[in-house]
Protein backbone atom coordinates (compact mmCIF):
# COMPACT_ATOMS: atom_id res chain seq x y z
CA UNK A 1 0.00 0.00 0.00
CA UNK A 2 1.42 3.36 -0.80
CA UNK A 3 2.67 5.44 2.04
CA UNK A 4 0.56 8.53 1.40
CA UNK A 5 -2.60 6.51 1.71
CA UNK A 6 -1.35 4.87 4.87
CA UNK A 7 -0.64 8.25 6.35
CA UNK A 8 -3.99 9.62 5.34
CA UNK A 9 -5.81 6.70 6.83
CA UNK A 10 -3.71 6.76 9.97
CA UNK A 11 -4.34 10.41 10.62
CA UNK A 12 -8.05 9.80 10.55
CA UNK A 13 -7.68 7.90 13.79
CA UNK A 14 -7.71 10.16 16.82
CA UNK A 15 -5.08 8.09 18.61
CA UNK A 16 -2.69 8.38 15.69
CA UNK A 17 -3.33 12.07 15.39
CA UNK A 18 -2.66 12.51 19.08
CA UNK A 19 0.60 10.64 18.89
CA UNK A 20 1.78 12.47 15.81
CA UNK A 21 1.12 15.74 17.59
CA UNK A 22 3.01 14.67 20.71
CA UNK A 23 5.94 13.37 18.70
CA UNK A 24 6.04 16.52 16.61
CA UNK A 25 5.98 18.69 19.71
CA UNK A 26 8.78 16.71 21.29
CA UNK A 27 10.76 17.00 18.10
CA UNK A 28 10.14 20.72 18.12
CA UNK A 29 11.30 20.95 21.73
CA UNK A 30 14.41 19.01 20.94
CA UNK A 31 15.34 21.04 17.89
CA UNK A 32 14.58 24.45 19.25
CA UNK A 33 15.55 23.79 22.85
CA UNK A 34 18.03 26.69 23.08
CA UNK A 35 15.38 29.15 21.91
CA UNK A 36 12.42 28.07 23.97
CA UNK A 37 14.12 27.13 27.21
CA UNK A 38 13.50 29.68 29.96
CA UNK A 39 16.67 28.84 31.91
CA UNK A 40 19.25 27.43 29.58
CA UNK A 41 22.12 27.26 32.06
CA UNK A 42 20.02 25.48 34.60
CA UNK A 43 18.84 23.08 31.96
CA UNK A 44 22.44 22.14 31.29
CA UNK A 45 23.13 21.57 34.96
CA UNK A 46 24.02 24.93 36.49
CA UNK A 47 22.87 24.81 40.12
CA UNK A 48 20.57 27.57 41.28
CA UNK A 49 20.79 26.92 44.95
CA UNK A 50 18.73 29.81 46.20
CA UNK A 51 15.57 28.40 44.66
CA UNK A 52 15.71 24.79 45.66
CA UNK A 53 12.61 22.61 45.49
CA UNK A 54 10.20 25.35 44.57
CA UNK A 55 6.69 24.08 43.83
CA UNK A 56 5.24 24.54 40.33
CA UNK A 57 3.93 27.96 39.45
CA UNK A 58 5.28 31.45 39.21
CA UNK A 59 8.80 31.73 37.93
CA UNK A 60 9.20 28.03 37.47
CA UNK A 61 6.16 26.61 35.78
CA UNK A 62 6.94 23.03 36.71
CA UNK A 63 8.91 23.86 39.83
CA UNK A 64 12.57 23.32 40.60
CA UNK A 65 14.61 20.33 41.65
CA UNK A 66 16.96 19.69 44.54
CA UNK A 67 19.60 21.91 42.98
CA UNK A 68 17.12 24.67 42.30
CA UNK A 69 17.12 24.04 38.57
CA UNK A 70 14.04 24.77 36.52
CA UNK A 71 12.37 21.45 35.79
CA UNK A 72 10.66 22.62 32.61
CA UNK A 73 13.97 23.76 31.15
CA UNK A 74 15.57 20.46 31.96
CA UNK A 75 12.66 18.57 30.48
CA UNK A 76 12.95 20.54 27.26
CA UNK A 77 16.63 19.74 26.95
CA UNK A 78 16.00 16.20 28.11
CA UNK A 79 13.83 15.58 25.06
CA UNK A 80 17.01 15.69 23.02
CA UNK A 81 18.54 12.73 24.77
CA UNK A 82 15.34 10.75 24.72
CA UNK A 83 14.79 11.15 21.01
CA UNK A 84 18.43 10.65 20.24
CA UNK A 85 18.55 7.45 22.22
CA UNK A 86 15.35 6.19 20.65
CA UNK A 87 16.47 6.90 17.14
CA UNK A 88 20.01 5.61 17.43
CA UNK A 89 19.07 2.45 19.27
CA UNK A 90 16.35 1.59 16.83
CA UNK A 91 18.34 2.48 13.75
CA UNK A 92 21.45 0.59 14.66
CA UNK A 93 19.74 -2.46 16.07
CA UNK A 94 17.40 -2.44 13.08
CA UNK A 95 20.28 -2.31 10.64
CA UNK A 96 22.40 -4.92 12.36
CA UNK A 97 19.40 -7.13 12.91
CA UNK A 98 18.34 -6.89 9.30
CA UNK A 99 21.80 -7.69 8.00
CA UNK A 100 22.08 -10.74 10.20
CA UNK A 101 18.49 -11.78 9.67
CA UNK A 102 18.63 -11.42 5.91
CA UNK A 103 21.91 -13.28 5.66
CA UNK A 104 20.64 -16.09 7.87
CA UNK A 105 17.28 -16.34 6.17
CA UNK A 106 18.58 -16.09 2.66
CA UNK A 107 21.51 -18.47 2.84
CA UNK A 108 19.90 -20.90 5.24
CA UNK A 109 21.75 -24.05 6.23
CA UNK A 110 24.88 -23.66 8.30
CA UNK A 111 24.99 -19.87 8.06
CA UNK A 112 21.45 -19.74 9.33
CA UNK A 113 22.13 -22.21 12.08
CA UNK A 114 25.20 -20.43 13.35
CA UNK A 115 23.73 -16.97 13.22
CA UNK A 116 20.47 -18.01 14.77
CA UNK A 117 22.03 -19.99 17.61
CA UNK A 118 24.08 -16.90 18.29
CA UNK A 119 21.03 -14.68 18.37
CA UNK A 120 19.18 -17.28 20.44
CA UNK A 121 21.72 -16.81 23.18
CA UNK A 122 21.04 -13.11 23.23
CA UNK A 123 17.33 -13.71 23.08
CA UNK A 124 17.62 -15.94 26.10
CA UNK A 125 18.21 -12.91 28.29
CA UNK A 126 15.38 -10.76 29.36
CA UNK A 127 16.35 -7.67 27.34
CA UNK A 128 16.75 -5.14 30.12
CA UNK A 129 18.83 -7.58 32.12
CA UNK A 130 21.41 -7.93 29.39
CA UNK A 131 21.43 -4.19 28.91
CA UNK A 132 22.03 -3.72 32.62
CA UNK A 133 24.84 -6.20 32.56
CA UNK A 134 26.50 -4.66 29.55
CA UNK A 135 26.00 -1.09 30.65
CA UNK A 136 27.45 -1.82 34.04
CA UNK A 137 30.44 -3.50 32.43
CA UNK A 138 31.10 -0.86 29.85
CA UNK A 139 30.81 1.88 32.41
CA UNK A 140 28.26 4.53 32.92
CA UNK A 141 27.34 6.99 30.25
CA UNK A 142 24.87 7.63 27.52
CA UNK A 143 27.00 6.14 24.75
CA UNK A 144 27.48 2.91 26.60
CA UNK A 145 23.82 2.72 27.49
CA UNK A 146 22.91 3.08 23.83
CA UNK A 147 25.45 0.45 22.91
CA UNK A 148 24.06 -1.87 25.54
CA UNK A 149 20.55 -1.41 24.23
CA UNK A 150 21.67 -2.02 20.66
CA UNK A 151 23.39 -5.22 21.72
CA UNK A 152 20.23 -6.45 23.37
CA UNK A 153 17.90 -5.38 20.63
CA UNK A 154 19.36 -6.41 17.34
CA UNK A 155 18.48 -10.09 17.85
CA UNK A 156 14.79 -9.23 17.84
CA UNK A 157 15.14 -7.53 14.50
CA UNK A 158 17.27 -10.36 13.24
CA UNK A 159 14.52 -12.78 14.06
CA UNK A 160 11.84 -10.59 12.60
CA UNK A 161 13.65 -10.00 9.33
CA UNK A 162 14.71 -13.61 9.09
CA UNK A 163 11.13 -14.78 9.25
CA UNK A 164 10.26 -12.17 6.65
CA UNK A 165 13.05 -13.38 4.41
CA UNK A 166 12.01 -16.98 4.81
CA UNK A 167 8.61 -16.18 3.42
CA UNK A 168 9.91 -13.79 0.77
CA UNK A 169 12.63 -16.03 -0.53
CA UNK A 170 10.20 -18.71 -1.59
CA UNK A 171 8.26 -16.17 -3.61
CA UNK A 172 8.52 -16.49 -7.33
CA UNK A 173 10.11 -13.12 -7.93
CA UNK A 174 13.19 -14.11 -5.99
CA UNK A 175 13.44 -17.30 -7.97
CA UNK A 176 12.90 -15.34 -11.14
CA UNK A 177 15.80 -13.11 -10.25
CA UNK A 178 17.95 -16.10 -9.47
CA UNK A 179 17.15 -17.80 -12.70
CA UNK A 180 17.91 -14.54 -14.49
CA UNK A 181 21.40 -14.82 -13.02
CA UNK A 182 21.19 -11.98 -10.52
CA UNK A 183 23.84 -12.44 -7.85
CA UNK A 184 22.93 -13.31 -4.29
CA UNK A 185 24.10 -9.97 -3.06
CA UNK A 186 22.00 -8.07 -5.55
CA UNK A 187 18.99 -10.23 -4.79
CA UNK A 188 19.31 -9.39 -1.14
CA UNK A 189 19.69 -5.70 -1.88
CA UNK A 190 17.06 -5.33 -4.57
CA UNK A 191 14.47 -7.93 -3.75
CA UNK A 192 14.70 -9.08 -0.18
CA UNK A 193 15.70 -5.98 1.71
CA UNK A 194 13.01 -3.60 0.38
CA UNK A 195 10.32 -6.15 1.07
CA UNK A 196 11.16 -6.72 4.68
CA UNK A 197 11.60 -3.06 5.49
CA UNK A 198 7.94 -2.38 6.23
CA UNK A 199 7.42 -4.75 9.13
CA UNK A 200 10.78 -3.76 10.55
CA UNK A 201 9.76 -0.13 10.27
CA UNK A 202 6.50 -0.70 12.07
CA UNK A 203 8.29 -2.65 14.74
CA UNK A 204 10.85 0.13 14.97
CA UNK A 205 8.16 2.74 15.56
CA UNK A 206 6.88 0.82 18.51
CA UNK A 207 10.38 0.06 19.70
CA UNK A 208 11.25 3.74 19.73
CA UNK A 209 8.99 3.92 22.74
CA UNK A 210 10.50 0.90 24.42
CA UNK A 211 14.01 2.14 23.69
CA UNK A 212 13.27 5.43 25.35
CA UNK A 213 11.74 3.60 28.26
CA UNK A 214 14.66 1.26 28.71
CA UNK A 215 17.20 4.05 28.37
CA UNK A 216 15.27 5.88 31.07
CA UNK A 217 15.39 2.79 33.24
CA UNK A 218 19.14 2.58 32.78
CA UNK A 219 19.48 6.25 33.67
CA UNK A 220 17.26 5.63 36.64
CA UNK A 221 19.66 2.95 37.82
CA UNK A 222 22.55 5.32 37.32
CA UNK A 223 23.88 3.52 34.26
CA UNK A 224 22.74 5.91 31.57
CA UNK A 225 23.00 9.64 31.20
CA UNK A 226 25.16 11.15 33.91
CA UNK A 227 24.44 14.24 35.95
CA UNK A 228 24.33 17.14 35.59
CA UNK A 229 23.18 16.50 32.02
CA UNK A 230 19.43 16.78 31.62
CA UNK A 231 17.66 13.49 31.04
CA UNK A 232 14.18 12.39 31.91
CA UNK A 233 15.13 9.09 33.48
CA UNK A 234 17.89 10.70 35.46
CA UNK A 235 15.55 13.40 36.68
CA UNK A 236 13.19 10.77 38.04
CA UNK A 237 16.08 9.02 39.67
CA UNK A 238 17.25 12.25 41.27
CA UNK A 239 13.73 13.02 42.34
CA UNK A 240 13.34 9.66 44.00
CA UNK A 241 14.70 10.95 47.30
CA UNK A 242 12.39 13.90 47.28
CA UNK A 243 9.14 12.68 45.85
CA UNK A 244 7.21 12.14 49.04
CA UNK A 245 7.55 15.76 50.03
CA UNK A 246 8.19 17.39 46.69
CA UNK A 247 5.98 15.45 44.34
CA UNK A 248 6.69 17.54 41.26
CA UNK A 249 10.36 16.66 41.05
CA UNK A 250 9.95 13.19 39.50
CA UNK A 251 6.35 13.52 38.36
CA UNK A 252 6.78 15.81 35.38
CA UNK A 253 9.73 14.12 33.73
CA UNK A 254 7.91 10.81 34.16
CA UNK A 255 4.83 12.25 32.57
CA UNK A 256 6.82 13.33 29.54
CA UNK A 257 8.40 9.91 29.15
CA UNK A 258 5.00 8.35 29.44
CA UNK A 259 3.41 10.61 26.83
CA UNK A 260 6.22 10.23 24.33
CA UNK A 261 6.51 6.47 24.72
CA UNK A 262 2.79 6.09 24.52
CA UNK A 263 2.69 8.13 21.34
CA UNK A 264 5.22 5.93 19.63
CA UNK A 265 3.34 2.87 20.75
CA UNK A 266 -0.01 4.18 19.59
CA UNK A 267 1.41 5.20 16.25
CA UNK A 268 3.08 1.84 15.82
CA UNK A 269 -0.15 0.13 16.71
CA UNK A 270 -2.15 2.05 14.15
CA UNK A 271 0.46 1.51 11.46
CA UNK A 272 0.58 -2.17 12.17
CA UNK A 273 -3.14 -2.44 11.99
CA UNK A 274 -3.27 -0.66 8.67
CA UNK A 275 -0.38 -2.51 7.13
CA UNK A 276 -1.11 -5.95 8.46
CA UNK A 277 -4.12 -7.25 6.59
CA UNK A 278 -4.54 -10.03 9.11
CA UNK A 279 -5.58 -7.47 11.67
CA UNK A 280 -8.37 -6.14 9.52
CA UNK A 281 -11.51 -7.85 10.48
CA UNK A 282 -13.40 -9.56 7.73
CA UNK A 283 -16.22 -11.66 9.00
CA UNK A 284 -19.37 -10.66 10.63
CA UNK A 285 -20.18 -12.19 13.94
Amino acid at each position, binding site marked *: *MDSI*LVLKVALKKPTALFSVVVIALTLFMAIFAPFITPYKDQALGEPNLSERLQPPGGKHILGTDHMGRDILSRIIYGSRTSLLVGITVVTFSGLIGMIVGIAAGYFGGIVDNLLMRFTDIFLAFPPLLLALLIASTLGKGLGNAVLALVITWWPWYARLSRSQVLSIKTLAYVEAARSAGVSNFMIMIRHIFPNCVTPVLVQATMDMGSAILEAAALSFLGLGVQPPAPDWGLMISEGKNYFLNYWWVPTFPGLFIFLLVMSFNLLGDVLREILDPRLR*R*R*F*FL
Partner: protein
Amino acid sequence: MKKLVEFESYSLTFATLSGKIKVLENVSFSINHNEVFALVGETGCGKTVTAISILNLLPVNAIRSGRIFFNGTEIDDKTVELIRGRDVAMIFQDPTSSLNPLYTVEKQLMDILVTRQHMSKKEAGLKMPELLKQVQLYDVDRILKSYPHELSGGMRQRIMIAMALACKPKLLIADEPTTALDVTVQRQILYLIAQIKEKNQLSILFITHDMGIVAQIADRVGVMYAGMMVEIAPKKTIFEKPLHPYTAGLMSCIFNPKKKTRPKPIAGSVPSFNSFSNECRFHSRCGISRKICSEISPELVEIEPGHLVACHACGGVRDD
Protein backbone atom coordinates in the same frame (compact mmCIF):
# COMPACT_ATOMS: atom_id res chain seq x y z
CA MET B 1 -42.65 -24.69 -7.93
CA LYS B 2 -41.93 -22.73 -4.80
CA LYS B 3 -38.61 -20.95 -4.69
CA LEU B 4 -36.17 -21.96 -1.99
CA VAL B 5 -33.95 -18.91 -2.11
CA GLU B 6 -34.78 -15.63 -3.68
CA PHE B 7 -32.59 -12.56 -4.13
CA GLU B 8 -34.54 -9.38 -4.67
CA SER B 9 -32.50 -6.52 -6.15
CA TYR B 10 -29.75 -7.25 -3.72
CA SER B 11 -26.79 -4.83 -3.60
CA LEU B 12 -23.70 -4.87 -1.53
CA THR B 13 -21.21 -2.14 -0.79
CA PHE B 14 -17.93 -2.37 1.08
CA ALA B 15 -16.49 0.50 3.03
CA THR B 16 -12.74 0.24 2.53
CA LEU B 17 -9.72 2.34 3.31
CA SER B 18 -9.87 3.86 -0.14
CA GLY B 19 -13.57 4.57 -0.14
CA LYS B 20 -16.76 2.69 -0.77
CA ILE B 21 -16.94 0.06 -3.47
CA LYS B 22 -20.15 -1.44 -4.71
CA VAL B 23 -19.39 -5.07 -5.35
CA LEU B 24 -22.89 -6.32 -6.00
CA GLU B 25 -25.33 -4.32 -8.03
CA ASN B 26 -28.99 -5.20 -8.12
CA VAL B 27 -28.65 -8.94 -8.05
CA SER B 28 -31.90 -10.80 -8.47
CA PHE B 29 -32.24 -14.52 -8.95
CA SER B 30 -33.75 -17.49 -7.28
CA ILE B 31 -32.94 -21.12 -6.58
CA ASN B 32 -35.65 -23.73 -6.82
CA HIS B 33 -36.18 -26.79 -4.75
CA ASN B 34 -34.05 -29.72 -5.71
CA GLU B 35 -31.98 -28.04 -8.34
CA VAL B 36 -28.32 -27.28 -8.85
CA PHE B 37 -27.87 -23.61 -9.54
CA ALA B 38 -24.38 -22.82 -10.78
CA LEU B 39 -22.96 -19.37 -10.33
CA VAL B 40 -20.08 -18.68 -12.71
CA GLY B 41 -17.88 -15.74 -13.39
CA GLU B 42 -14.35 -14.50 -13.17
CA THR B 43 -12.36 -13.95 -10.01
CA GLY B 44 -13.64 -11.13 -7.90
CA CYS B 45 -16.96 -10.77 -9.68
CA GLY B 46 -18.86 -11.37 -6.46
CA LYS B 47 -19.78 -15.03 -6.45
CA THR B 48 -18.63 -15.69 -2.93
CA VAL B 49 -20.17 -12.58 -1.42
CA THR B 50 -23.45 -13.45 -3.07
CA ALA B 51 -23.37 -16.92 -1.58
CA ILE B 52 -22.36 -15.94 1.91
CA SER B 53 -25.04 -13.26 1.92
CA ILE B 54 -27.52 -16.06 2.38
CA LEU B 55 -25.87 -17.03 5.66
CA ASN B 56 -25.00 -13.45 6.52
CA LEU B 57 -21.30 -14.22 6.82
CA LEU B 58 -20.36 -10.84 5.42
CA PRO B 59 -17.52 -8.78 6.80
CA VAL B 60 -18.37 -5.95 9.17
CA ASN B 61 -17.57 -3.37 6.54
CA ALA B 62 -20.36 -4.61 4.29
CA ILE B 63 -23.43 -2.47 3.69
CA ARG B 64 -26.31 -4.41 2.23
CA SER B 65 -29.49 -3.36 0.55
CA GLY B 66 -32.31 -5.31 -1.05
CA ARG B 67 -33.73 -8.50 0.33
CA ILE B 68 -33.04 -12.21 0.40
CA PHE B 69 -35.70 -14.79 1.15
CA PHE B 70 -35.24 -18.31 2.28
CA ASN B 71 -38.26 -20.52 2.02
CA GLY B 72 -40.43 -17.44 1.99
CA THR B 73 -39.01 -15.72 5.07
CA GLU B 74 -36.73 -12.77 4.76
CA ILE B 75 -33.22 -13.35 6.04
CA ASP B 76 -32.14 -10.91 8.69
CA ASP B 77 -29.87 -11.05 11.70
CA LYS B 78 -32.37 -13.12 13.65
CA THR B 79 -33.72 -15.53 11.11
CA VAL B 80 -30.28 -16.30 9.81
CA GLU B 81 -29.41 -17.87 13.17
CA LEU B 82 -32.18 -20.39 12.58
CA ILE B 83 -31.07 -21.53 9.16
CA ARG B 84 -27.34 -21.66 9.78
CA GLY B 85 -26.28 -25.23 10.15
CA ARG B 86 -29.87 -26.46 9.83
CA ASP B 87 -31.55 -25.58 6.57
CA VAL B 88 -28.45 -24.29 4.90
CA ALA B 89 -24.99 -25.79 5.00
CA MET B 90 -21.91 -24.61 3.27
CA ILE B 91 -18.76 -26.17 1.86
CA PHE B 92 -15.85 -23.88 1.33
CA GLN B 93 -13.24 -23.66 -1.34
CA ASP B 94 -10.27 -24.36 0.86
CA PRO B 95 -10.92 -27.33 3.13
CA THR B 96 -7.56 -26.94 4.84
CA SER B 97 -8.21 -23.58 6.36
CA SER B 98 -11.90 -24.20 6.85
CA LEU B 99 -11.37 -26.88 9.46
CA ASN B 100 -10.22 -25.93 12.92
CA PRO B 101 -6.62 -27.12 13.15
CA LEU B 102 -6.63 -27.63 16.89
CA TYR B 103 -9.55 -30.02 17.10
CA THR B 104 -9.98 -33.56 15.89
CA VAL B 105 -12.48 -34.38 13.21
CA GLU B 106 -14.55 -36.11 15.85
CA LYS B 107 -14.80 -33.01 18.01
CA GLN B 108 -15.76 -30.79 15.10
CA LEU B 109 -18.45 -33.12 13.83
CA MET B 110 -19.67 -33.72 17.34
CA ASP B 111 -20.06 -30.01 18.07
CA ILE B 112 -22.29 -29.58 15.07
CA LEU B 113 -24.41 -32.59 15.87
CA VAL B 114 -24.76 -31.65 19.52
CA THR B 115 -25.36 -27.94 19.23
CA ARG B 116 -27.36 -27.85 16.00
CA GLN B 117 -29.09 -31.21 15.86
CA HIS B 118 -29.56 -31.40 19.64
CA MET B 119 -28.24 -34.91 19.78
CA SER B 120 -26.77 -36.40 22.90
CA LYS B 121 -23.10 -37.22 22.75
CA LYS B 122 -23.96 -40.86 22.52
CA GLU B 123 -26.32 -40.42 19.58
CA ALA B 124 -23.77 -38.26 17.89
CA GLY B 125 -21.14 -40.94 18.44
CA LEU B 126 -23.33 -43.40 16.59
CA LYS B 127 -24.18 -40.95 13.86
CA MET B 128 -20.64 -39.96 12.96
CA PRO B 129 -19.45 -43.24 11.40
CA GLU B 130 -22.58 -43.27 9.35
CA LEU B 131 -21.86 -39.78 8.05
CA LEU B 132 -18.30 -40.67 7.18
CA LYS B 133 -19.45 -43.72 5.29
CA GLN B 134 -21.83 -41.55 3.31
CA VAL B 135 -18.88 -39.53 2.09
CA GLN B 136 -17.01 -42.73 1.34
CA LEU B 137 -14.53 -42.56 4.15
CA TYR B 138 -14.24 -46.06 5.53
CA ASP B 139 -11.31 -45.89 7.92
CA VAL B 140 -13.68 -44.33 10.42
CA ASP B 141 -11.85 -44.68 13.72
CA ARG B 142 -8.56 -43.34 12.50
CA ILE B 143 -10.15 -40.44 10.70
CA LEU B 144 -12.25 -39.40 13.67
CA LYS B 145 -9.17 -39.29 15.85
CA SER B 146 -7.17 -37.33 13.30
CA TYR B 147 -6.43 -33.65 13.19
CA PRO B 148 -7.20 -31.98 9.86
CA HIS B 149 -3.55 -31.57 8.93
CA GLU B 150 -3.08 -35.31 9.09
CA LEU B 151 -5.55 -35.89 6.30
CA SER B 152 -5.21 -35.38 2.56
CA GLY B 153 -6.97 -32.60 0.70
CA GLY B 154 -9.63 -34.89 -0.69
CA MET B 155 -10.36 -36.37 2.70
CA ARG B 156 -10.69 -32.93 4.24
CA GLN B 157 -13.19 -31.93 1.62
CA ARG B 158 -15.13 -35.10 2.33
CA ILE B 159 -15.13 -34.18 6.01
CA MET B 160 -16.54 -30.79 5.07
CA ILE B 161 -19.27 -32.53 3.11
CA ALA B 162 -19.96 -34.83 6.03
CA MET B 163 -20.34 -31.77 8.23
CA ALA B 164 -22.82 -30.37 5.76
CA LEU B 165 -24.74 -33.65 5.68
CA ALA B 166 -24.88 -33.68 9.45
CA CYS B 167 -27.20 -30.70 9.20
CA LYS B 168 -29.68 -32.38 6.85
CA PRO B 169 -29.87 -29.13 4.92
CA LYS B 170 -32.37 -28.03 2.31
CA LEU B 171 -29.75 -25.95 0.60
CA LEU B 172 -26.09 -26.73 0.18
CA ILE B 173 -23.83 -23.89 -0.78
CA ALA B 174 -20.67 -25.18 -2.39
CA ASP B 175 -18.12 -22.45 -3.03
CA GLU B 176 -15.63 -23.84 -5.51
CA PRO B 177 -15.41 -27.07 -3.55
CA THR B 178 -12.95 -28.73 -5.88
CA THR B 179 -10.66 -25.96 -7.06
CA ALA B 180 -7.93 -26.87 -4.60
CA LEU B 181 -8.00 -30.52 -5.53
CA ASP B 182 -6.40 -32.66 -8.19
CA VAL B 183 -8.39 -33.54 -11.28
CA THR B 184 -8.84 -37.15 -10.32
CA VAL B 185 -10.04 -36.22 -6.88
CA GLN B 186 -12.22 -33.43 -8.27
CA ARG B 187 -14.36 -35.88 -10.09
CA GLN B 188 -14.69 -38.10 -7.02
CA ILE B 189 -15.90 -35.20 -4.91
CA LEU B 190 -18.28 -33.87 -7.52
CA TYR B 191 -19.74 -37.26 -8.10
CA LEU B 192 -20.23 -37.60 -4.38
CA ILE B 193 -22.02 -34.26 -4.19
CA ALA B 194 -24.25 -35.19 -7.09
CA GLN B 195 -25.14 -38.50 -5.46
CA ILE B 196 -25.93 -36.85 -2.18
CA LYS B 197 -28.11 -34.35 -3.91
CA GLU B 198 -30.12 -37.11 -5.56
CA LYS B 199 -30.47 -39.07 -2.36
CA ASN B 200 -31.33 -36.20 -0.03
CA GLN B 201 -33.37 -34.12 -2.42
CA LEU B 202 -31.59 -30.88 -1.75
CA SER B 203 -30.84 -27.77 -3.68
CA ILE B 204 -27.28 -26.75 -4.36
CA LEU B 205 -25.84 -23.32 -5.03
CA PHE B 206 -22.70 -24.28 -6.83
CA ILE B 207 -20.02 -21.69 -7.37
CA THR B 208 -17.26 -22.31 -9.85
CA HIS B 209 -15.45 -20.81 -12.75
CA ASP B 210 -14.82 -24.10 -14.46
CA MET B 211 -17.31 -24.36 -17.33
CA GLY B 212 -16.53 -28.05 -17.62
CA ILE B 213 -17.94 -28.66 -14.17
CA VAL B 214 -20.95 -26.50 -14.93
CA ALA B 215 -21.64 -28.52 -17.98
CA GLN B 216 -21.85 -31.71 -15.98
CA ILE B 217 -23.48 -30.80 -12.71
CA ALA B 218 -25.69 -27.73 -13.11
CA ASP B 219 -29.39 -27.47 -13.85
CA ARG B 220 -29.45 -23.73 -14.26
CA VAL B 221 -26.60 -21.29 -14.58
CA GLY B 222 -26.20 -17.70 -13.49
CA VAL B 223 -23.36 -15.75 -15.07
CA MET B 224 -21.92 -12.88 -13.11
CA TYR B 225 -19.74 -10.12 -14.31
CA ALA B 226 -18.23 -7.48 -12.03
CA GLY B 227 -20.95 -7.70 -9.44
CA MET B 228 -23.87 -7.95 -11.82
CA MET B 229 -25.90 -10.95 -12.81
CA VAL B 230 -25.69 -10.72 -16.60
CA GLU B 231 -27.44 -13.88 -17.69
CA ILE B 232 -29.47 -16.67 -16.16
CA ALA B 233 -30.55 -19.68 -18.14
CA PRO B 234 -30.78 -23.44 -18.11
CA LYS B 235 -27.44 -25.10 -18.63
CA LYS B 236 -28.02 -26.15 -22.21
CA THR B 237 -29.06 -22.67 -23.25
CA ILE B 238 -26.00 -21.10 -21.72
CA PHE B 239 -23.67 -23.40 -23.60
CA GLU B 240 -25.52 -23.51 -26.85
CA LYS B 241 -27.28 -20.15 -27.20
CA PRO B 242 -25.63 -17.63 -24.93
CA LEU B 243 -27.09 -14.19 -25.46
CA HIS B 244 -25.04 -11.83 -23.38
CA PRO B 245 -21.81 -10.87 -25.18
CA TYR B 246 -19.86 -11.66 -22.02
CA THR B 247 -21.28 -15.16 -21.78
CA ALA B 248 -20.59 -15.67 -25.42
CA GLY B 249 -17.05 -14.49 -25.02
CA LEU B 250 -16.58 -16.76 -22.06
CA MET B 251 -17.75 -19.73 -24.06
CA SER B 252 -15.26 -19.07 -26.80
CA CYS B 253 -12.41 -18.87 -24.31
CA ILE B 254 -12.94 -22.37 -23.07
CA PHE B 255 -10.45 -25.05 -23.97
CA ASN B 256 -11.79 -28.42 -24.84
CA PRO B 257 -9.74 -31.55 -24.35
CA LYS B 258 -11.56 -33.20 -27.19
CA LYS B 259 -10.54 -30.76 -29.85
CA LYS B 260 -7.58 -28.59 -30.54
CA THR B 261 -8.90 -25.06 -30.49
CA ARG B 262 -7.28 -21.75 -30.82
CA PRO B 263 -9.17 -19.78 -28.14
CA LYS B 264 -10.66 -16.39 -28.93
CA PRO B 265 -9.99 -14.32 -25.84
CA ILE B 266 -12.13 -11.40 -24.68
CA ALA B 267 -10.00 -8.31 -24.93
CA GLY B 268 -9.08 -6.29 -21.88
CA SER B 269 -9.59 -7.11 -18.26
CA VAL B 270 -12.17 -6.51 -15.56
CA PRO B 271 -12.13 -2.84 -14.57
CA SER B 272 -11.78 -2.05 -10.92
CA PHE B 273 -14.92 -1.65 -8.85
CA ASN B 274 -14.42 1.93 -7.79
CA SER B 275 -14.44 3.09 -11.41
CA PHE B 276 -18.06 2.12 -11.90
CA SER B 277 -20.92 4.54 -11.98
CA ASN B 278 -24.33 3.78 -13.41
CA GLU B 279 -23.37 2.00 -16.61
CA CYS B 280 -23.19 -1.45 -18.11
CA ARG B 281 -20.13 -2.80 -16.38
CA PHE B 282 -19.11 -4.79 -19.43
CA HIS B 283 -19.32 -2.04 -22.00
CA SER B 284 -15.61 -1.24 -22.08
CA ARG B 285 -14.77 -4.77 -23.21
CA CYS B 286 -17.90 -5.36 -25.25
CA GLY B 287 -17.70 -5.75 -28.99
CA ILE B 288 -21.22 -4.48 -29.57
CA SER B 289 -21.40 -1.68 -27.04
CA ARG B 290 -23.47 1.36 -27.86
CA LYS B 291 -23.82 4.79 -26.41
CA ILE B 292 -26.55 3.77 -24.03
CA CYS B 293 -24.35 1.08 -22.58
CA SER B 294 -22.08 3.68 -20.98
CA GLU B 295 -25.02 5.54 -19.51
CA ILE B 296 -27.58 3.13 -18.18
CA SER B 297 -27.08 -0.14 -16.49
CA PRO B 298 -29.24 -2.76 -18.23
CA GLU B 299 -31.91 -4.62 -16.31
CA LEU B 300 -32.11 -8.36 -16.17
CA VAL B 301 -35.07 -9.24 -18.38
CA GLU B 302 -36.66 -12.51 -19.22
CA ILE B 303 -36.22 -12.94 -22.93
CA GLU B 304 -37.75 -16.33 -23.17
CA PRO B 305 -39.10 -18.51 -20.38
CA GLY B 306 -36.29 -19.23 -17.95
CA HIS B 307 -33.73 -17.23 -19.87
CA LEU B 308 -32.85 -13.84 -18.44
CA VAL B 309 -30.30 -11.45 -19.89
CA ALA B 310 -29.07 -8.02 -18.85
CA CYS B 311 -27.96 -6.39 -22.07
CA HIS B 312 -29.24 -3.44 -24.02
CA ALA B 313 -28.32 -5.18 -27.25
CA CYS B 314 -30.46 -8.16 -26.45
CA GLY B 315 -33.25 -6.33 -24.68
CA GLY B 316 -36.33 -8.18 -25.86
CA VAL B 317 -34.76 -8.86 -29.23
CA ARG B 318 -33.36 -12.22 -30.03
CA ASP B 319 -30.75 -11.75 -32.62
CA ASP B 320 -29.20 -15.18 -33.08
